[in-house]
């Protein structure tokens, strides 16, 4: 399945993009997603430590399974406030 994901903050800069696509097997998890991003977009790999995955605007655990059509985002360690 193809997953579209939104990028924010420092993750936008290496590629100059605010969204990317990765190809995942059905039933892939958030952990698998980050591994796929690192492999398909090596410029992002060094920035993924501590990055969380959000699905439909909610943080998910590493073992959460992803489904096509959901809004997925990579959330780098936050720095609001």
């Amino acid at each position, binding site marked *: 399945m193809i997953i579209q994901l*939104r990028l*924010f*903050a*420092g993750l936008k800069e290496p590629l100059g993009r605010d969204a990317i696509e990765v190809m995942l097997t059905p039933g892939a998890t958030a952990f698998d997603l980050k591994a796929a991003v690192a492999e398909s977009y090596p410029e992002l790999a060094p920035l993924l430590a*501590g990055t969380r995955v*959000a699905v439909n*605007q*909610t*943080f998910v655990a590493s073992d959460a399974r992803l489904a096509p059509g959901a809004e997925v*985002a990579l*959330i*780098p*360690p*936050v*720095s*609001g*406030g």
Partner: protein
Amino acid sequence: MIRITSEPIDLNALYAHLASPRSGALVVFTGHVRDHNEGQRVKGLDYEAYAEMAERQMTLIRDAMHERWPLERVALIHRVGALDVGDVAVAVGISAAHRPAAFEACRYGIDTLKAEVPIWKKEHREAGAQWLQNPEA
């Protein structure tokens, strides 16, 4: 009141929103852009938000505050865009009958916002700019 805004935060409107006849205590925390960090001069901060999720997380924080403490009103406001030293980046406001709940809830509100809300700051120094991470995150 939950708000992400690119306009300067209106503190008069915030106080007017929080005040109520039932509230004897009103506590507002405002976070301002500081002129230094890690021993170096800071020229300004750019704030970016994943706005839809940030509002959702801020709403969850507000609901948790109402659940844990007896509060009248809660406001969480964050500004985004390019901010100068001294600008107010965030406001967490509480009104309650009595001050213990107001102080505790306010502290919880800002501490949790800094850990859980998808907003990021890019710090501009003389030598360049970098995206920061909160220790709470």
